Structures are given as C-alpha cells and as structure tokens.
C-alpha cells in the first residue's frame, strides 16, 4: 500500500501541472495513467501539431509541451505509474482507498481526477463474436511476438502499428494484412515495404476489406472479410490482430459515486472539489458554468485544487500564499536555493 498526500489520476498536461502546484506547497503526489507514456491527448492525439495558446509560449507542440512539463516537475521526484488504470475508489475512514487494475493500492486523503475524456483504450472490432475471442485469438496489442510464431495471423488496420507488425510478423508467421481502403495512412516507406513484401510473396495484403464474421468454436478457425459492395472472402486464420488506434473511455470513473453531467464531473470553482469531499476534478473532465476545454484553464484549475488538497493533507497547518519569485520555501522545494 502506498500512502500519499494526493493521488492524481491522469498524466495529461493538466495532471502534470497539478503535480507542480502540489509540489510547491509541499504536498507529495503519486500519478497513475493508463497510457504507456505521459502527456494525455497532447501525446496520443497530436504530438507534432502546433499549439499557439499556451501563455507566454508563442508556439509549442504537444510533445514539447509535455517534455517541458515533465522537466518542470522533476524536482519533486514524483512516481508516475504508467500502464495502470484506476479501477476502484472507496472510502476508508478519513482516507480514500484507490485500487488500480494491477491491484496496486493507494491510501490518500485527496484525489485529483485529471482524466480528460477518459482513459485511452484500444478500439475494438465491431463484431459481437470478437468479445468472446478477446485474448484467445483476438488481440489489440502484442506482448510477445513469439506467441505468433508459425501461426496464421490476420492483421487489421492501415496505420503504422498495423504495417510495422505485418512486416515484423511476416518473418515468423503467415500474415494477411487487411485494410478498409487501398491507401495506408502509415509512413510512406513502411507502406512501400509492405507492398514489396507482398510482391515477394512474404505477406498477403487484402484491400479494401473489413471484417465480416469470425468462425470457430473454442478457437478461431477462419474469418470472412467483405468489401463495401458486399463481396466476401474467407481467410483461414489462427489469430486476428486489430490496430485501430485508441479511444477515450470514461470507464471506471462512472462507478465512484460522483455526480456526472454528460461525460463530465461538475465541480465548484473555488477549489474544484466534486460532490465527494477530498475528490477534485480538473482539466477536460470537469465542468462548471463557462468551462473551456483549454490547457491553460486546466492549469488554473490545478493550482486551486492543489490548495484545496492542503486542508485535508495538513489539517494542523495553515496554508500561506507565497510567490515563487520571493519564497525561500518554494525555491528550496524546487532545488534552486540551498537551505541554510
């Protein structure tokens, strides 16, 4: 069990800056995110696109913003638990007991939910049968490629993941790459390499096809694919891999007893607390009159929520407002001034 002053759910830009605001007032935070990297939407959806409305930065990219935020919170040596989704939040006397899908448990008086539009999850096949075979023939990621050795593998998708894995697995398995249209959106040279492999007979490519049905009782035996015009074909296969990118799912957040408005959590604008004491929500996931889903708004929300956390984390101390320019205590926490 990990004890902390504040658990931050979500390592998007807003969650990361909240760590900074907690750090400067002396509160210890732990961060959990379902993705395999920090940065939330900025990294997952638009790493290379320009952002023009971060105060005092004429322009930055989703990636550079994330890198700078990480640099800024470095002094606090915060643990960031990636690849873990927060599943359960239950009251434990004066604390919240928070459990992740990997059964890690946190005990904390405060939770800041900076969960964006929800956790990023793989997009799945639209077929009902696909659920039945999930993790038993149908996969949305690859942990160990050797599992697919000498098997018949059908890979669906048109982006880099689908192309890269089709090329990689074609060296050890019998691969068919299926995509809904003739063009691939992955890197040009990877698409060309896949076409070259196809000509050399190392890889089969089927376009423009989409999945139509899955056949098999205990294990997958074959699938059928079809075109827009209804032409179908059968592919004998052992495994089916889908690479359709990620989608944001609110997921477990709906089960924590919080008020919800559409897919967002109403908060007060004094300290961004939800209807539950000690649970705050900031960034895209919170709502209040006039809410703007902008990164800069999320930064402000984090600053106030951090002060809100102080009360419960340090019940016997009084929070004092200070400027970073002149506060010795803040500069010590940032490691820019030696304490005497």
């Amino acid at each position: 069990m990990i004890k902390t002053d504040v658990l931050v759910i979500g390592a998007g830009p807003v969650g990361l800056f909240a760590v900074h605001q907690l750090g400067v007032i002396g509160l210890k935070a732990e961060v959990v995110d379902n993705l395999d990297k920090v940065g939330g939407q900025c990294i997952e959806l638009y790493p290379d696109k320009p952002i023009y409305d971060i105060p005092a930065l004429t322009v930055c990219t989703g990636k550079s913003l994330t890198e700078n935020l990480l640099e800024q919170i470095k002094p606090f040596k915060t643990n960031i638990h990636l690849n873990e989704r927060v599943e359960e939040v239950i009251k434990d006397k004066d604390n919240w007991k928070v459990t992740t899908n990997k059964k890690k448990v946190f005990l904390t008086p405060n939770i800041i939910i900076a969960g964006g539009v929800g956790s990023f999850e793989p997009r799945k096949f639209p077929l009902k049968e696909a659920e039945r075979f999930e993790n038993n023939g149908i996969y949305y990621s690859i942990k160990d490629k050797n599992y697919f050795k000498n098997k018949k593998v059908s890979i669906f998708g048109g982006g880099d993941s689908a192309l890269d894995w089709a090329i990689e697995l074609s060296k050890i398995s019998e691969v068919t790459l299926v995509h809904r249209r003739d063009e691939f959106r992955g890197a040009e040279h990877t698409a060309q390499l896949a076409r070259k492999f196809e000509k050399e007979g190392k890889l089969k490519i089927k376009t423009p096809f989409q999945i139509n049905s899955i056949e098999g009782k205990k294990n997958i035996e074959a699938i059928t694919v079809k075109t827009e015009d209804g032409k179908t074909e059968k592919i004998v296969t052992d495994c089916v891999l889908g690479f359709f990118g990620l989608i944001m799912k609110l997921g477990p957040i709906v089960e924590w007893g919080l008020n919800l408005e559409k897919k967002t959590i109403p908060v007060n604008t004094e300290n961004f607390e939800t209807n539950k004491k000690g649970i705050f929500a900031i960034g895209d996931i919170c709502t209040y009159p006039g809410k703007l889903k902008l990164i800069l708004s999320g930064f402000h929300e984090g600053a106030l929520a951090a002060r809100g956390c102080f009360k419960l984390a340090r019940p016997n101390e009084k929070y004092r407002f200070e400027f970073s320019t002149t506060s010795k205590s803040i500069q010590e926490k940032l490691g820019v001034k030696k304490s005497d």
Partner: protein
Amino acid sequence: MPKITYIEHNGKSHQIEVANGLTVMEGAVQNNIPGIDADCGGSCACATCHSYVEEKWFDKLPKKESAEEDMLDMAFEPKKFSRLTCQITVTDDLDGLVVKMPSKQG
C-alpha cells in the same frame, strides 16, 4: 436556417435547424442529440462524430480531406457513405441533409 435530420441507430429521427457556419457535429451536440460523442471537440482526432450520410447527399457534400479519411479508418463500422460530422460545415446548400448514426461510436 438549413434543416438537418439526424436519425439515431434505433430509428428515432430529429430534425433541427442548424445555423450556417456550424458543423453538422455542433448542430447535434448543441441540441443534445444522442449518438454523436465528439470527444475531441471537432479537431478530427477521435472519429466519435461518425455518421452515415444518405446516399443522394453524399456526392453533394464537399469532398473529404485526407485527414478525415485517415480518421475514418478508426471509426466504428465505417461504410461507403461514412463521414465525420465535425468536418461538414453547414451551408444553405445542405438544407434537407439526412445523416444516420452508427450503433455506437466505439
């Protein structure tokens, strides 16, 4: 104002007046029509504003940009007449447009 008809997957139909300049997605979201999620707020990055445009309307719409076609790869059950509604801007020419929502957005 142009009238747009949104048909939910269960067949329930909503006819809404949508101001010129808004997108078909915004028309749905601002009027609380279920079936269009628009998680990314219209920046062509989520494919959760996906819908099927009635065939006779499909060719009348401004053509898809490649970013929209790329994003449609990730939509739930894309078909021949699939569009992302955040990429369709309402004009007088679209008066009478009919879009059908997929069974879910993902």
